[in-house]
């Protein structure tokens, strides 16, 4: 089990809070829609901190203005990938931003083994560090 004060991976906006209910998720989605963001559902079984590209569960929902629609997509994703990490991401296309403006985890595997830190001793006291996800010892599709 991952060893930190909350016992789980703490990526995203709300990992230190109790899991958001679907009603609470809908309020966050509405906030983003109010700002003109487009929501996207992404999932992965490799939560390495530098694993930038989680799989997209469809394209960002640029024309979807209703939180219920986003929640439907999220439920479909949960059904298809019940033991994966799933996150909601909001994109802002405003000039000089053009990036992600919200991101939070909305589904987790039942157990989160976390990471080991691999130290490769180098010249002098230099050490090269690698963060290794235990779960990735198994091939994709056989994890979780």
């Amino acid at each position, binding site marked *: 089990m*991952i*060893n930190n004060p909350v016992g789980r*991976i703490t990526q995203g*906006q709300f990992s*230190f*809070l109790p899991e958001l209910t679907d009603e609470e998720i809908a309020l*966050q989605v509405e906030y983003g829609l109010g700002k003109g963001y487009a929501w996207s559902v992404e999932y992965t079984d490799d939560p390495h901190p530098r694993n930038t590209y989680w799989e997209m569960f469809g394209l960002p929902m640029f024309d979807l203005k209703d939180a219920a629609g986003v929640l439907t997509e999220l439920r479909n994703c949960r059904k298809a990938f019940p033991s994966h990490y799933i996150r909601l991401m909001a994109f802002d296309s405003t000039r000089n931003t053009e990036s992600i*403006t*919200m*991101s939070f985890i909305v589904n987790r595997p039942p157990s989160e083994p976390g990471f080991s830190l691999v130290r490769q001793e180098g010249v002098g006291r230099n050490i090269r560090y690698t963060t290794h996800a235990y779960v990735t010892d198994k091939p994709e599709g056989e994890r979780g």
Partner: protein
Amino acid sequence: MNMAQATDDQAKGQIKDAKKRYSAGVLKYRQMGYWDADYVPKDTDTLCLFRITPQEGVDPIEAAAAVAGESSTATWTVVWTDRLTACDSYRAKAYKVEPVPGIPGQYFAWVAYDIILFEEGSIANMTASLIGNVFSFKPLKAARLEDIRVPVAYVKTFKGPPTGLVVERERLDKFGRPLLGATTKPKLGLSGRNYGRVVYEGLKGGLDFMKDDENINSQPFMHWRDRFLYVMDAVNKASAATGEVKGSYLNITGATVEDMYERAEFAKELGSVILMVDLVVGWSTIQSMSNWCRKHDMILHMHRAGHGTYTRQKNHGVSFRVIAKWLRLAGVDHLHTGTAVGKLEGDPLTVQGYYNVCRDSYTKQDLPRGLYFDQDWADLKKVMPVASGGIHAGQMHQLLDLFGDDVVLQFGGGTIGHPGGIQAGAVANRVALECMVKARNEGKDIKNEGPQILRNAAKGCTPLQQALDTWGDISFNYASTDTSDYAATPATSA
């Protein structure tokens, strides 16, 4: 028109007759061409607003003309060699003077500078002109550069922040909330090994960044290499324990620029995502380090060490909003810009003005916030402001309300001084932050309901309860020395 009247008229403005203008001797600055009430600033001009306090008996318009003269081409006497040049281009023009509302003896003076006056991409050159000699000029008791408008044509000669706040977030994979940091304390005396312990505990507990303090360089108690090695062990271990990208600002400030490059290289070898320099290293060094960071994918944190010596007093020096503009042009990614509610100087509106300068695509004139000019940033990257100094979890609603998401909130004492330990302190801050962002997004009025939101969150989080019990009532309510002086209706010209 009698003779006396003619002489009087002449004294008021520029002498147009070249022979009279360039005959040897001393003229008033306005006679030399440094005052032009009819001047219409060009889009390519740099505009400065000075607050000046002329000596008794010195006419404010002549004082303003003197500021324009002494910050551009003038010397105290007429020189014929002006006539070898297109000298009118090089003369800055004072074009407006108004009394400062409510402060007798002080005047606002607007001065325009032609684009030919400055070297492209050089803050050192711009500052050598604008604040080079003029602040020691005897006819003025005091002078302060309140604000500056840098024209787009000149902005485009600067590369700006090496990373910028948008790309920083993408690299760190952290969105939609302020970042959390803490300065490692005590700032002096910890060995490298002990220092790394503080870094590890803070990051593992939930902070995104730890930070070297401004005067941590390479002293007898801790050699810089030792610090870097232990800190990076802590950063990597905390990253593995949380699954998040973490960092610690490694201060590379040193005795020489060569030392600084050496330290930067070593930080890169160890895989740090961020470096730090102190403002006292000077403009050219800052721009060099910015170039290095751009080349090596590094975030550059600027600690504004020393700025209070020239930014704090309202009547003399350079406003921090000007320093912030110069630093955005020079190219830093993080900049300490005040907390408004913490232990260090800062009126809330004035501080918000600094934040706007860091983060706007286009800064609009906003007199209550001390922003006297529109500033088009021409798509220059944005700087992440840093709020640090005497803030704690109990102020989370105020901080989020004042500064929004794009800010690093640094709770040094508020993390390390937590009764349950450093990790508990970090947990308290992270929970306070996340619950407040969540509540704001849900449409709650955090400014008023904030304390209750924190108390509710603390019911499920002992560390937050302990933090509120320890610091909940601490505030620093002192009058600010630096506030914006403005009149809703501008006063008539003096």
